[in-house]
């Protein structure tokens, strides 16, 4: 492992973050926060530039370097992302600032702020930008734009956007990354324009469009999407579903293959699970309130927000009937499709686990049966299957440990359980004391640190970060292979 080479790329990433800080810095003029923003932006740019300048240009990325760049890169980026919160003085603690930054980049959307409208507009914009960069992946963006990442791009791509390998859109990874970012940017622009047409202010439109396509969850309003009308909410439901869909499908759809969604195995599961969950919540809400008409939109909107791991809210689902809360917890765990901007365990992995389990039952009935786990008509290779099962175990264990720590810090069971799950699956709001009507501000420094770690683990799907703490990663190549 060549740390200098890794730092070279990390330096370049920091310069990118500084570039992303420019729009809020301009915005800061109206907030009277010009000085802190200018210092932060220039400081980040300078640090990045120096790192980049004083490290070797020749970079050869293999698997180890790839993982280290993504892992280390993310740690440095979220640290830089926390700087504006500290410099402008809106963060009560450093841990709080880091929590907000991590929540942004991992597209979680959990916030420490009780009253969003009180925050400066430059900070609001920065929160949405962190979402947008983190959604499709800041490293994937690097692979798309920076030519020097071309060679080892595939390693980076895999480390930042893992999951089950899907087909590349183009033979070259940089072209694939560019297409995915292109589709992502296009959809964001389209949604922003639709919001404008529906009467949102330009500022609200841009922020919500970025947050929605990244499946983030930060809003410019305390009431989240509840502050807007029915038409805005329905449009948001549609685009949340799109953001939770594999973006390669979108590209294929844009190139004229209109039925590509219905032909995709994972998408059919995703759609079916969403429909069933929404129907369940609708019936439960309707029975509880007796007002069926008023139950449709909240049920559909909030189920979609959780399924896609966006975390917008139009109702306080922490007060919904218990059955709805359990359904939502299930969706929080499963998450969106692989290859989307959403988080969670991923629909395709859930499908693999379900199929594999059915196969094991079949083996009990037919001891000599040769059982092959299939996704659609394609057989899942046993390495992939083992990876998925190990991932399930990691997910469960990490969630368990997270729950224990949050509970040990003095929180109740529902809060601890849902907060750690909502953090890992990049949802945002949980249940109990961290429900959609509440916030994460009162949990304390320790909880903020633990949840930040969970968010990063969940977003990078464990392996990338866990590998960083294994000593052999840092040994020189040629040591142990």
């Amino acid at each position, binding site marked *: 492992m060549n740390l200098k080479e890794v730092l070279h790329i990390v330096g370049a990433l920091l310069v990118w973050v500084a570039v992303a800080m420019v729009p809020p810095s301009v915005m800061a003029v109206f907030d009277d926060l010009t000085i802190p923003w200018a210092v932060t932006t220039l400081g980040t740019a300078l640090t990045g530039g120096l790192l980049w300048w004083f490290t070797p240009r020749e970079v050869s990325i293999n698997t180890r370097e790839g993982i280290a760049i993504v892992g280390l890169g993310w740690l440095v980026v979220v640290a830089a992302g926390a700087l504006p919160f500290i410099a402008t003085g809106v963060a009560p603690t450093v841990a709080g600032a880091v929590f907000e930054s991590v929540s942004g980049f991992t597209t979680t959307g959990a916030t420490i702020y009780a009253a969003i409208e009180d925050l400066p507009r430059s900070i609001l914009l920065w929160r949405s930008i962190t979402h947008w960069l983190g959604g499709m992946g800041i490293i994937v963006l690097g692979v798309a734009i920076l030519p020097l990442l071309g060679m080892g791009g595939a390693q980076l791509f895999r480390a930042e956007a893992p999951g089950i390998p899907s087909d590349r859109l183009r033979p070259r990874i940089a072209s694939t990354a560019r297409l995915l970012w292109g589709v992502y940017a296009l959809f964001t622009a389209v949604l922003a324009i639709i919001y404008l047409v529906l009467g949102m202010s330009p500022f609200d439109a841009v922020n919500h469009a970025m947050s929605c396509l990244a499946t983030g969850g930060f809003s410019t309003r305390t009431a989240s999407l509840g502050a807007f009308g029915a038409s805005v909410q329905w449009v948001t439901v549609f685009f949340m579903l799109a953001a939770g869909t594999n973006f390669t499908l979108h590209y294929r759809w844009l190139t004229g293959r209109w039925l590509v969604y219905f032909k995709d195995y994972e998408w059919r599961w995703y759609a079916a699970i969403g429909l069933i969950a929404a129907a369940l919540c609708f019936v439960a809400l309707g029975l509880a309130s007796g007002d069926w008409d008023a139950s449709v939109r909240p049920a559909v909107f909030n189920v979609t927000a959780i399924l896609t791991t966006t975390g917008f809210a139009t109702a306080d689902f922490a007060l919904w009937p218990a059955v709805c809360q359990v359904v939502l917890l299930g969706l929080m765990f499963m998450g969106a499709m692989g290859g989307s901007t959403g988080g969670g365990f991923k629909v395709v992995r859930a499908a693999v686990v379900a199929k594999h389990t059915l196969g094991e039952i079949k083996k009990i009935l*037919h001891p*000599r*049966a*040769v*059982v092959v786990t*299939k996704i659609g*008509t394609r057989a899942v290779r046993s390495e992939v299957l083992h990876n998925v099962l190990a991932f399930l175990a990691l997910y469960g264990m990490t969630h368990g440990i997270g729950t224990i720590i949050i509970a040990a810090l003095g929180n109740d069971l529902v809060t601890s359980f849902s907060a750690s799950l909502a953090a890992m699956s990049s949802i945002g709001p949980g249940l109990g004391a961290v429900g959609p009507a509440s916030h994460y501000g009162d949990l304390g420094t320790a909880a903020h640190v633990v949840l930040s770690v969970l968010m990063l683990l969940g977003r990078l799907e464990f392996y990338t970060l866990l590998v960083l703490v294994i000593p052999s990663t840092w040994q020189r190549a040629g040591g142990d292979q």
Partner: protein
Amino acid sequence: MHIVVVGAGEVGYHVAERLSSQKHDVVVVDVEPKRLEYVANHLDVAVVEGSGTSTGVLEEAGIRSAGLLLAVTNVDEVNLVSCMSARGMPGVFKVARCSNPDFYRDARNLKPDAFGVDMLINPEGELALETMRLLHSTAATDIAVFAGGAVQLLGFTVKSEAPIAGRRLVDIASEEGDRPLLTVAIEREGETLVPDGATKIVAGDHVYVAATEAEIPRALELLGYEAAPIRRVMITGGSTEAFYLAKLLTQHRVQVTMLVAERQRAQELAEKLNKVLVLHGDATDVELLELEGVSGADGFVALSDADETNILSSLVAKHAGVKRVITLVNKKDYVPLASRIGLDAAVSPRLSAANAILRYVRRGTVTRVATFKGSDAEAIAFEITSASPVAGKRLAEAAFPKGSIVAAIVRGTEVVVPRGDDVLQPGDTTIVFVLPDAVADVTALFPS
């Protein structure tokens, strides 16, 4: 006609035998001298040693004067390249055997001039299709389908409790009225005879019957059988034929259990096939067969590569009470044995391949040829052109030679069961059942 056959394996041998007995000049090409020697000793054909993919070898085999090239080795690529090597030869109709499912599907999209292939045949696929039809027609031992399934020729063994046993054909016809049970041939004590009205049906006879899909239940009844639906089928063996059959059956919503002896192949089939329960185990493992509910299966098909294993597992299935047991038999000598030891029907890859190939040998007015296992008779579909001497004539006047019988007339979508006063019109397709001696005379009635 001069015919070059590339490949002296099971398929090549049988095709050469068939063609040579029909007075064609056949040259067999193979790389293996031992196999060629066997062919030369048993058949009246010439042999050339060498690879069929080489133009020189093909020329030595007389490809320049040949009308037909049959590339039927068990390697698809060799067959395709052989056709390619003969591309420049004028007037040679080139047939390639292609067994790999993927290859077959792709190769069909190739333009004929890419490989020079005029016709692709898939014997394993044909066998699977035949097996499925046999499963569905309950009691038939043979089946040949004409005019896209409108007419079927089925072979049955007459049971002693059959209502028609011991009766003359004229009497049966008068009772059945409009739609008599048309018996086109009877196989009795190893002899095939074409019956007339006075012929008596005897229990134990093997009869060939022409019927439309709708008439099959009545035909079964008259022969002493009951119709039974097929819902669950057990297949043993991991051959290509087994793969095709499992795929076909699942498409027809039949529940399939497969028993494959080789672990690797079982895994491969489990990956390729959907909705099929693939088991790793021996086909003759009685305990396993019982555990997997062989007695509850509606059909049992033994399709492994070894005849002995197939016969043994079929006997186990029959003993367990499976209604329909179909056995793959490679060795010619075992075919008549199969029915004698109580197996319902036998299929042979050799015959399926021969059927597929012979169908295209006599082009022109011939649209389809079928052969049958126990007999050398063939069923041939001819299209009647105005040039034919039988066109416009009543059936009784048309001079069909002895040893042949018109089994059905297909007019558009209508199927006519032929009587003496039916008129043969140009554009009709006639299905004629022919004994080997009469093939040449019958073919002469239908000039192209």
